[in-house]
């Protein structure tokens, strides 16, 4: 239609309108003279006083005018149509210019699943199978995706807490490198074929009388135990071998020898007034650290009014436990047994007991003390305390100490009456004892001799884990059929014919029993992501081959429960109800008591102890760690990047040496040393660790996996090769190591610059001089609770007075956090919890090397004392949400601002990345995205499917060039606010917990509304020991700390230097 025609059309329209008007007016039959007194008229309608017109005059805006225009009815170029089309065009154009941060489409549910509401999380109870502790977990899911693993608060052992490995375990499920289909010699096959081949081989082996070996980790599940027993019935030549790299076998065996009981009662650490840890890291890397941390720190609570316990650590290594100890005695590990025997002799003499070695000059404690130049005060206090607190103290030997040392410790505890601290009610339960080294040896010989026809690796990696002296890898090559059930590639799967992919723990059914009195239940949180099967189901299916279905093991499990456990619980409810509530709670309590609790020390056991003597060689300690475990978490970047609590090193293991020993060897940090123990040798980079006993070398196991995917392969040095098949002391202590300086260097990377603690007077005790750490003794606190307030290091005004300048009054709720340094052990669980909650990227070793780690929460470690006998302070450091935040006034674009509830917020969208805020942050807690880390780390590993599904949808995934930092878990605060609005109530500070707070096994972190005077966090803030870091610069932080109290009789070392 050309313009002319349009114009004509419009004229026509107008004409019609006029005609209509005239018609209407005429029809009404009125005359102009009658109706229009004022004489003015706007149209014929008005002139003839048409009622529709007068109505229209009243309602100035006709409904038609307000209606949205109907584009289809419009003429070609009407104004509204033009605008509508322009708008639509702009919208299309805008949609075409997709925001680079947005990927994918969000589609609402067509049919909403029951229980799932978009935007709201669901929680499911289950059990963590990351190690044999089998802690209860509570998994948070969003729209069906598990996004965070926390401890199950109902679980009696871990009580809602979870270690770093457990927390980071979520990444294992989403690991893009999980096997997705069964494989035969690295080619994809289907399950039916695999099953058929394996079952045929199993039958053939049974017929031929050849051995079928199943190699598993410790069996913690009673139903799995039953399954194995039944499997053995089906295939009688089956043998089940189980091993753990880190176990407390020595302790249990020693208990067996000492008291004749295979199961050990549970230690009630909370009842101990004095704890003597012998080469034990019960607060961090040893098993049961969650419970022990809780029980230990319960008596380190300044708010509770309870007496502080006192911790002695006697150790060769420098562990978290040692650094938290009130008195630390540096002693080479192989001399510990002698030390314990000296104590035994000392107390036996004191109590005039017979049957003990005479108190000769050569075995007195004094003699021993002089021989090893032990700290005299510490030893004297130790003896006095053990004497004073008989029955209220415990001597606790570390997992890795030899059996004979554990027996000596049992003896000492027995003499002192400390066995009272062992529970009469609860004892540990073993489904199946671990295989002795001889059994594993016989397996290897069976494999070598051809007697083993089938070897099934039941989620284990013996090729990497076992001592090379077994020759397991070579033997494995001779086995006709090798099957590995595994989630991800391992050294063992590389050597196996059949690699069968198994479910992650979050896709599994199961039950676990570690102690008397309760079971822990496991249920799948998500449907299997891939064509995988639960490992129990695979075995079950082979036991009696039939059509496989996903419910196979679930049915088996519930049948077993219905038959065995359900009746024992004595529940009145139907099994279905019982079962549902068991799965819902994750824990099932049963009424059972250990059999035969009374026990006396078996005098014969004494004969087997007290023989270990220290050598003159180097002692090598093979340590467990918070990061990769026995190597099974090697492909978890979060854990690899979690700094070691003491050394703060990441992405590596190393040989830690004392200052003295390093000088003797002529090596420095990053130099290489060669270690040989018998025929076994390995070279390690050196790290000089203050506080190690001289001639002790501490090395972490679990590193340098050769087949652990792109993240885990080749990280660190393999120390497993130093493990002996039949070690003289224990598989983790070797006192016959020869050490020499090697060639070359290797760069170790830490998150914290290490500087000499003593040599430079400028740096000595700097944490105290700057008011970063405040520390005193329990005695001082008792005498004068406010003693630390009064000695403000700069003699400036106390905190928050006077206000530097007027600012917002926080009249409503205001968020604050308090961290009790008495409870914090430095374990790192909070850091991992924060990483998972807040989608913290992994930056890799090179990223950390460039000082660009992204963790929002870090744990600062400060040494004091001498390089030989240091103590350490641990301080979780995160955004302090200062009232006068120095970051805020320097941001040119107002991307970081303060909220009315006292939060220092980051607006990522607005941030241009000047980094000025970070420069001006006195706490240096801001983190900058120097790259798109998700893209940068290992070929965009973190962007790969399905790892991208792991992200917490409540927390923005930050892009390159943006500053970020702790938000006080803003998403959780907003959730509470939503709930408060929905429920028409006020926001309750106690309803919000931060991720770090949830994770802390020591309950060291409190969070809440500081304007609520009754809240816990306020009590901590106003406690006489409460202080804020760097208070003299008056930025008014909202994170406060409770000063550390050492429970020692003497003045603190730092006092002398003042």
């Amino acid at each position, binding site marked *: 239609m050309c313009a002319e025609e349009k114009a004509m059309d419009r004229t026509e329209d107008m004409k019609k309108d006029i005609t209509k008007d005239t018609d209407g007016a005429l029809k009404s039959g009125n005359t102009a003279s009658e109706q229009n007194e004022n004489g003015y008229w706007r149209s014929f309608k008005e002139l003839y006083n048409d009622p529709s017109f007068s109505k229209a005059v009243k309602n100035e805006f006709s409904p038609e005018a307000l209606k949205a225009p109907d584009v289809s009815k419009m003429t070609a170029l009407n104004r509204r149509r033009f605008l509508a089309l322009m708008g639509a065009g702009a919208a299309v154009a805008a949609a075409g210019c997709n925001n680079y941060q947005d990927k994918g489409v969000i589609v609402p549910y067509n049919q909403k699943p029951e229980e799932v509401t978009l935007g709201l999380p669901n929680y499911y109870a289950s059990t963590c199978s990351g190690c044999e502790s089998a802690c209860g977990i509570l998994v948070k899911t969003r729209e069906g995706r598990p996004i965070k693993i926390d401890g199950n608060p109902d679980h009696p052992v871990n009580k809602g807490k979870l270690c770093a490995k457990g927390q980071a375990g979520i990444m294992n499920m989403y690991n893009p490198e999980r096997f997705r289909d069964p494989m035969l010699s690295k080619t994809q096959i289907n399950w039916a074929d695999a099953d058929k081949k394996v079952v045929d081989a199993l039958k053939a082996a049974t017929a031929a009388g050849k051995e079928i070996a199943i190699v598993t980790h410790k069996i913690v599940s009673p139903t799995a135990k039953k399954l194995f027993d039944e499997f053995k019935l089906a295939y009688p030549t089956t043998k089940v071998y189980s091993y753990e790299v880190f176990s407390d076998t020595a302790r249990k065996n020693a208990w067996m020898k000492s008291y004749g009981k295979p199961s050990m009662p549970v230690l009630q650490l909370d009842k101990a007034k004095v704890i003597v840890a012998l080469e034990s890291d019960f607060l961090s890397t040893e098993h049961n650290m969650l419970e022990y941390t809780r029980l230990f720190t319960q008596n380190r609570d300044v708010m509770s009014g309870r007496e502080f316990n006192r911790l002695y650590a006697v150790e060769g290594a420098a562990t978290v436990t040692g650094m938290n100890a009130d008195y630390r005695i540096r002693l080479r590990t192989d001399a510990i047994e002698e030390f314990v025997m000296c104590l035994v002799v000392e107390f036996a003499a004191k109590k005039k007991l017979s049957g003990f070695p005479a108190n000769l000059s050569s075995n007195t404690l004094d003699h021993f003390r002089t021989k090893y130049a032990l700290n005299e005060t510490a030893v004297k206090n130790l003896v006095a305390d053990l004497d004073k607190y008989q029955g209220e103290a415990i001597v606790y030997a570390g997992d890795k100490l030899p059996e004979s040392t554990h027996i000596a410790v049992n003896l000492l505890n027995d003499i002192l009456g400390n066995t009272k601290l062992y529970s009469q009610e609860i004892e540990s339960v073993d489904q199946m004892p671990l295989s002795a080294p001889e059994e594993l040896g016989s397996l290897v010989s069976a494999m070598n001799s051809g007697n083993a026809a089938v070897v099934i690796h039941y989620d284990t990696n013996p090729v990497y884990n076992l001592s090379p002296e077994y020759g397991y890898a070579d033997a494995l090559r001779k086995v006709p059929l090798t099957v590995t059930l595994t989630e991800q590639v391992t050294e063992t799967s590389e050597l196996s014919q059949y690699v069968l992919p198994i479910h992650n723990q979050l896709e599994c059914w199961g039950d676990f029993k570690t102690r008397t009195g309760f079971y822990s239940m496991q249920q799948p949180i998500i449907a299997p992501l891939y064509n995988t099967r639960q490992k129990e189901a695979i075995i079950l299916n082979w036991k009696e081959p039939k059509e496989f279905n996903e419910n196979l093991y679930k049915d088996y499990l519930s049948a077993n429960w219905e038959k065995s456990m359900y009746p024992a619980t004595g529940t009145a409810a139907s099994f279905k109800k019982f079962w549902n509530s068991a799965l819902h709670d994750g824990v099932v309590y049963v009424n059972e008591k250990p059999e035969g609790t009374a026990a006396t020390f078996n005098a014969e056991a004494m004969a087997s102890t007290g023989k270990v003597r220290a050598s003159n060689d180097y002692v090598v300690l093979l340590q467990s760690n918070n990061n990769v475990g026995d190597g099974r978490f090697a492909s978890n970047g979060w854990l690899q990047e979690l700094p070691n609590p003491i050394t703060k090193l990441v992405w590596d293991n190393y040989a830690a040496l004392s200052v003295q020993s390093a000088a003797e060897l002529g090596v420095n940090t990053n130099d290489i040393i060669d270690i040989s123990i018998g025929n076994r040798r390995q070279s390690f980079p050196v790290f000089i660790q203050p506080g190690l006993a001289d001639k002790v070398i501490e090395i972490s196991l679990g590193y340098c996996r050769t087949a652990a995917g792109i993240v885990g392969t080749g990280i660190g040095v393999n120390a497993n090769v130093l493990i002996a098949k039949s070690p003289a002391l224990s598989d983790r202590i070797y006192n016959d190591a020869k050490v020499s300086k090697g060639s070359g260097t290797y760069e170790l990377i830490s998150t914290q610059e290490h500087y000499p603690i003593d040599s430079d007077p400028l740096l000595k005790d700097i944490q105290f001089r700057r008011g970063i750490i405040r520390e005193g003794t329990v005695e001082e606190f008792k005498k004068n609770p406010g003693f630390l307030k009064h000695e403000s290091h700069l003699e400036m005004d106390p905190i928050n007075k006077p206000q530097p300048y007027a600012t917002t009054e926080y009249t409503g709720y205001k968020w604050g956090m308090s961290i009790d340094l008495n409870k914090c052990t430095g374990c790192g669980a909070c850091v991992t919890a924060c990483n998972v909650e807040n989608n913290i990227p992994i930056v890799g070793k090179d990223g950390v090397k460039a000082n660009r*780690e992204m963790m929002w929460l870090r744990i600062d470690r400060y040494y004091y004392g001498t390089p030989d006998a240091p103590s350490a302070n641990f301080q979780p450091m995160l955004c302090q949400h200062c009232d006068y935040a*120095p970051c805020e*006034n320097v941001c040119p674009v107002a991307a970081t601002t303060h909220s009315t509830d006292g939060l220092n917020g980051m607006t990522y969208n607005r941030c241009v990345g000047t980094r000025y805020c970070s420069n001006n942050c006195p706490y240096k807690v801001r983190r900058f*995205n*120097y790259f798109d880390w998700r893209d940068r780390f290992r070929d965009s590993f973190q962007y790969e499917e399905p790892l991208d599904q792991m992200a917490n949808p409540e927390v923005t995934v930050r892009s390159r*060039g943006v500053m970020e930092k702790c938000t006080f878990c803003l998403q959780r605060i907003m959730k509470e606010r939503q709930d408060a609005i929905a429920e028409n109530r006020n926001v309750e500070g106690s309803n919000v917990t931060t991720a770090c707070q949830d994770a802390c096994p020591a309950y060291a972190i409190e969070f809440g509304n500081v304007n609520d005077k009754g809240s816990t966090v306020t009590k901590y803030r106003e406690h006489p020991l409460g202080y804020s870091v760097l208070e003299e610069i008056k930025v008014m932080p909202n994170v406060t700390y409770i000063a550390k109290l050492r429970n020692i009789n003497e003045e603190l070392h730092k006092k002398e230097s003042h």
Partner: protein
Amino acid sequence: MSFDATYTRELPLVDGKSSFKELDDVIAKPTETKPTLKWWIAIGISSTALLIGATCLGLTFWYGVGLWGNNQPVGWAFDIINFVFWIGIGHAGTLISAILFLFRQKWRTGIARFAEAMTIFAVMTAGIFPLIHTGRPWLDGYLLPYPNQHNLWVNFTSPLLWDVFAVSTYFTVSFVFWYIGLIPDFAILRDRTKSGIKKAAYTIFSLGWRGSNRHWQHYERVYLILAGLSTPLVLSVHTIVSFDFAVSVIPGWHTTIFPPYFVAGAIFSGFGMVSTVLIIVRKVFDMEHIITVNTLEKMNKILLATGTMVGYAYSMEFFIAWYSGNPIEQFTFINRAFGPYAWAYWIMFSCNVFFPQLFWFKKIRRNIPITFVLVLLVNVGMWFERYVIIVTSLTRDYLPSSWGMYFPTMYDFGILLGSFGLFFTLTLLFAKTLPVVSISEIKAVTEGAQPTHLDRKEEEQIDYRTVF
């Protein structure tokens, strides 16, 4: 010895008695002749450097500022060092052209044009760094206070924002000042050139200048006003740049002495750079009689004065650190001089304070090769001053747990090189296309241009040296 007590004459500002024509010829020569081989080599080097910098910058845009050595805790490093360094360089130009003009220091005439041009190029170079140092440079527009429907406004308390205003104002005023000064010279070039294109260009830029009395009257007035406008900028711009640091809470940054200290340092470094370039230019373009040793000596005196002021500031920082009784502040300064970055500190101190003291000696002030070496050292020293302030303060601030060393990468060096490349490329293009000395002004200060009661012949016979 005759003694004439009536008045003293100043030293001649232009050696010899060049006629106006000769001055026109000498100054306009580079713009009228084909570039020499020396010029080609020079621009070859500078544009290569520029290209290297541009490549490094391109890669930085593509991958992120992570290519640089910046880290936690050193959020700023070469980026802001270079920014402050180049802004400082610019200050000499404004001081020479504006402040010395207001103080009627005629000796400025020979060097003013060049110094002004260097100001503009230095500010251009400096201005790049705040733009590229951001993590998301494509959003730099957020730094401008433009009205928007989100009501999102910039943060007026941030010194970085003050920088935006200070630097853009500085650039605008300097540019206008420079251009106004060029107008009479454009007219001279317009009148001299025979090329049609050049003629057209010069005609446009000379804004119809005919040299009439009225033009000169307006010109002088505008020049005076602009000089007045520029003068406070000499003090304000670097004061505001120093606020980037002084307003923060970081020990070593949070110092009230920073504004005067930075301004003195800026003038110091600017004169260093002007001398460096002029010593080359007067040689290459045969302008030794226009940019005389006398002028250079005067500049060296300013270098001596400002260098000593800078030295005073360095010392005063230590004194205040001690006097404040603040142990963290004290640590920062002891760490500066004796910590891991002591080498940088002592490079700074010796180049800026020790070596310029040699200018107390007249022989050294008037010795061109030694002057050249010393001004080069000043350039190095002033770059390191910013390195010391920015890097050493950030590497070890409050919490020892977050201390960390800084290691620059090849991209940092590449961009630093590129900044020199940009500066010298612009300078060389300027030297080839525009008169490097103000032709009209130099005529006013050349011997014989002043009105005199003597006739020309008589005047020629006077030996000025005997007058003193």
